[in-house]
């Protein structure tokens, strides 16, 4: 299944005496962290550079009728620091980040303040959606693998293909359309179609939580469904690999029933490749969150990113990219941790 001996040690029987985790484990984790932080910075830098090249924040000013005097335009350019070369602007922006200073928007507002507010909104939405997606995806994938080739497996394949073919922004709208008759039948808003809370409503305690949940339900579903469909396909394939493996037969040969063998030995192994996949594709799935926020009118980071691009504001784009990158890094570290739990070979083996 896996080749354990690296080519350099081939022919040399490398047998390890069991011992505690080697001191290299912590160092390895630190190296991974450094690698990821480097990626983080590089991604933010790339986004900043691309945005600075692409955006022309003075266009609107220039296009005004009557045209504003050149001095006004120059002043704005000066305020935005457009005269400096792009890398220098980036460094200037980056220098402020550790102090919570993410620069100003084109219109002169502090980014930092708004960032934290929107950050919470997005994380809440995306976390709920992703958790639901992982649980659903893994469960469906495992179930399908065990029912390989039967009608339920085929139906599930078909459903996942369709879900993956529906763009997230459409999915949100479709969910609304499907739910609309239910709301109408109930004569009240069972689930809300937009915003985080009911504006103006002054709920407290359980009522407030209930209100939030009723707003959260549909967007969470919109985020979760495509991800779940995606994960389920891969989980199915991973589990099928495990089901055909020798050690599962060996586990049954020692007296475990099929179901016991699958649950005690199979599932854990089948989850290992999924953790890596999760880390790789986390960034890609974040796009779904952006769309969902817009469709459901949540004032999160995704919504802000779209607005930043429309306003041609490089600072907003860089801040949101940094946010995304940090999330990806956190997801990666989480994946590393889970992987080490699932697969002790990673903990024990050298780097």
């Amino acid at each position, binding site marked *: 299944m896996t*080749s354990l001996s690296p*080519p350099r040690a081939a022919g040399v029987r490398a047998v390890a005496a069991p011992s505690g985790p080697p001191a290299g484990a912590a160092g390895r984790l630190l190296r991974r962290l450094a*690698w990821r932080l*480097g*990626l*983080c910075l*590089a*991604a933010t830098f*790339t*986004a900043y550079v*691309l*945005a600075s*090249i*692409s*955006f*022309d924040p003075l266009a609107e000013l220039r296009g005004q009728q009557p045209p504003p005097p050149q001095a006004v335009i120059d002043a704005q350019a000066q305020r935005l620091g457009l005269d400096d070369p792009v890398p220098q602007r980036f460094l200037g922006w980056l220098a402020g980040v550790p102090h919570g200073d993410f620069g100003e928007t084109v219109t002169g507002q502090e980014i930092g303040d708004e960032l934290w507010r929107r950050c919470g909104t997005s994380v809440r939405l995306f976390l709920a959606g992703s958790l639901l997606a992982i649980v659903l995806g893994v469960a469906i994938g495992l179930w399908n693998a065990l029912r390989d080739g039967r009608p339920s497996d085929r139906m599930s*394949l078909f459903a996942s*293909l*369709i879900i*993956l*073919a*529906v*763009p*997230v*922004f*459409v999915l949100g*709208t*479709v969910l*609304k*359309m499907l739910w*609309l008759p239910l709301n109408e039948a109930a004569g009240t808003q069972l689930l809300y179609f937009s915003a985080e809370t009911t504006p103006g409503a002054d709920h407290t305690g359980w009522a407030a939580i209930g209100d939030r949940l009723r707003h959260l339900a549909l967007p969470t579903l919109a985020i979760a469904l495509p991800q779940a469909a995606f994960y389920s396909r891969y989980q199915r394939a991973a589990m099928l690999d495990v089901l055909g493996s020798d050690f599962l037969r060996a586990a049954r040969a020692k007296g475990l029933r099929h179901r016991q063998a699958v649950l005690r030995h199979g599932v854990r192994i089948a989850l290992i490749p999924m953790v890596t996949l999760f880390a*790789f*594709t986390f*960034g*890609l799935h*974040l*796009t779904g969150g*952006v*769309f969902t926020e*817009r469709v459901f009118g949540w004032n999160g980071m995704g919504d802000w*990113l*779209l607005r930043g*691009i*429309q306003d*041609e504001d490089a600072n907003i*784009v860089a801040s*949101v*990219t940094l946010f*995304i*990158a940090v999330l*990806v890094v956190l997801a990666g570290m989480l994946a590393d941790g889970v992987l080490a739990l699932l697969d002790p070979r990673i903990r024990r083996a050298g780097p």
Partner: protein
Amino acid sequence: MNTLTEERTSAQGRGRFRSAARRTPGRPSIVCGAALLLALAGAAVLGPLLWPYDHVAQDRTAMLVPPGGEHWLGTSRLGEDLLAQCLQGLRKSLVIGLLVAVLSTTLSAAVGLAAGYLGRWVDRCLMWGVDMLLILPPFLVAAVLSPLLRERSWLYMVLVLALFQWMLTARVVRARTVALRQREFVTAAHHMGAPTLWIMRRHLLPHLVPLLVIDCTLHVGAAILGEAGLSYFGFGIQPPDVSLGTLVATGSGSALTYPWAFLAPVGFLVVTVSAVGLLGEGLRRALEEGRGGSNED
């Protein structure tokens, strides 16, 4: 176990594609997907020639007509015939999808092969780049670049989509290449004195073809969705050009009141992308499972 290995090996000897065609574990999927795609492509190419309405003609006497009658799929807010619009949009979406898929698959094959076979610092550098691009959502980059691309040809958008969609495949290609590199026939070629490019072309690439064909198919779907997302938010195809994305965007405003203007392009989009997905899944089963794991893994 011995018997199985033997059997699979002999199956492979018949030539991958012929044996795949004979057994084709995923044949229903391939046939359905391919037939649907061909029908859609045919409609997209021939439709505008046969259908009496032009996609930009605005009929002020027939605005927001529901489906049926003369306008099979109804009309838009401006009185444009939706079927004509959808066919035009489909045409653009399909072209973009194909171009992006071919470009990104080529790129991922090149990067994956180089990283996997050359190893060492080439591998480290390329994989660092791949990891970085995996952090940047392709949508973000394409949207950020949209002010630059707005005045230029849509072909630039194809380029941007392709540039940010190849990374996952490249990673898989790299992993496969690393596995292939340890196989003895590659070592044998190396010992024969075969140059790197020779080995890549003659011994590595042929083994990656099934993977690349499958991923190329799936990239078509991803590209169509990516374009639709960009256009939906106004970062993609610009009027007067239409794509399925712009049509969905126009229709979604009134989705709850005049659903057909929304559902018609959505229907085309979903059917197209799921047909591509169906084809891809069928190909995966036919090529990957039928390829005989004994020699491949």
